[in-house]
């Protein structure tokens, strides 16, 4: 038997969105050990980070959608992740993203998240997604607003206070 693991590749102007892979582990460990992970479930140790990596693949199998890892299309440098998360505790599927220090400040996360959002609308039937954002995560809040998302309501995710931002509905292509 084989697991149904059909993670599509998406290319944008500068990026390739692809399946998480083992070589991403080291940069992920650095990310989850750093302050950058404070708003997205960190810090995590190496063991928990490995579980994050493997569970992202399992998420695709169980849900049929999940997180892509994105890399620089030319150099192959792994820069971050984006996609749809839907685990127990989530009140609906979420569009999430994180960018590694290497990819900060160049608009990569926006470019990847917009591609993921469009793909989810076209292929997963998820055309009106929301994002959970820690109010203090000013960079991500700013990015959500740039993507056209607006504050919807306050929420609690896994025991942590957060804001729900609603993305514009993606119209049928």
């Amino acid at each position, binding site marked *: *038997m084989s*697991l149904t693991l059909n993670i599509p590749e998406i290319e944008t102007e500068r990026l390739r969105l692809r399946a998480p892979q083992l070589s991403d582990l080291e940069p992920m460990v650095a990310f989850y050990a750093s302050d950058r992970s404070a708003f997205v479930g960190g810090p995590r140790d*190496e063991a928990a980070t490995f*579980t994050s990596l*493997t569970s992202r693949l399992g*998420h695709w*199998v169980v849900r049929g959608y999940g997180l892509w890892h994105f890399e620089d299309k030319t150099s192959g440098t792994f820069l971050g992740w984006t996609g749809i998360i839907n*685990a*127990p*505790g989530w009140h609906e599927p979420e569009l999430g993203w994180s960018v590694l220090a290497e990819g900060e400040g160049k608009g990569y996360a926006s470019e990847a998240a917009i591609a993921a959002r469009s793909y989810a609308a076209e292929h997963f039937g998820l055309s009106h997604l929301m994002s959970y954002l820690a109010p203090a995560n000013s960079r991500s809040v700013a990015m959500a607003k740039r993507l056209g998302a607006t504050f919807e309501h306050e929420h609690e995710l896994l025991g942590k206070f957060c804001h729900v931002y609603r993305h514009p509905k993606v119209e049928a292509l």
Partner: protein
Amino acid sequence: MSVPTIPVLETKRLVLRGPEPEDYPNFKATFASYRSRFMGGPLNAYETWMLYAAEIGHWNIRGYGMWMIHDKATDETLGMAGGWFPAKWPEREIAWIIWPDKAGKGYALEATHAVRRHFYEQLGWDGAVSYIDPKNLDSIRLAERLGAVKDKTAASVDGHDVVYRHPSPDALRSSQIADAIEMEISHYADPMFKPKGHALD
């Protein structure tokens, strides 16, 4: 990207298949229970779901992982057994867990014996260990019934577990361990010879 092919292993009473989304409820019940106390549990709903997703993803990342153990006759799930190798673990582990209400019938012995043979004969492993909580007496007994011996010199995962080293493929072939395991399994399968004594995995 590569899609892992998970071999189906058959034993006298069991069929081992890769973990499938519909097998989740029994896994969830076990990891919400006290039964999981030696495997990092009990876990909340989010942690349990992520661990199950990680069990699936492990196959993709490592090319091997934990099989779901099914009763050959009824197809119901009984537990899991297979290989486990998270980041920074000293060695590849052979691991097992049996649902609380399915313990005591030798399923873990039968399944683990089969997965170890698969790793040795099909994947060319030259050995393996099991990391066991020293208070988990059932698992220690199972490791010993599989011919594993405590290795005090080997590195443990976090200092709170003991390392049981499985016999090498050669040792397993050239000794009576495998015969003894198969005899014990056949006794579980034949109620006339059901092993006496307290419940074992």
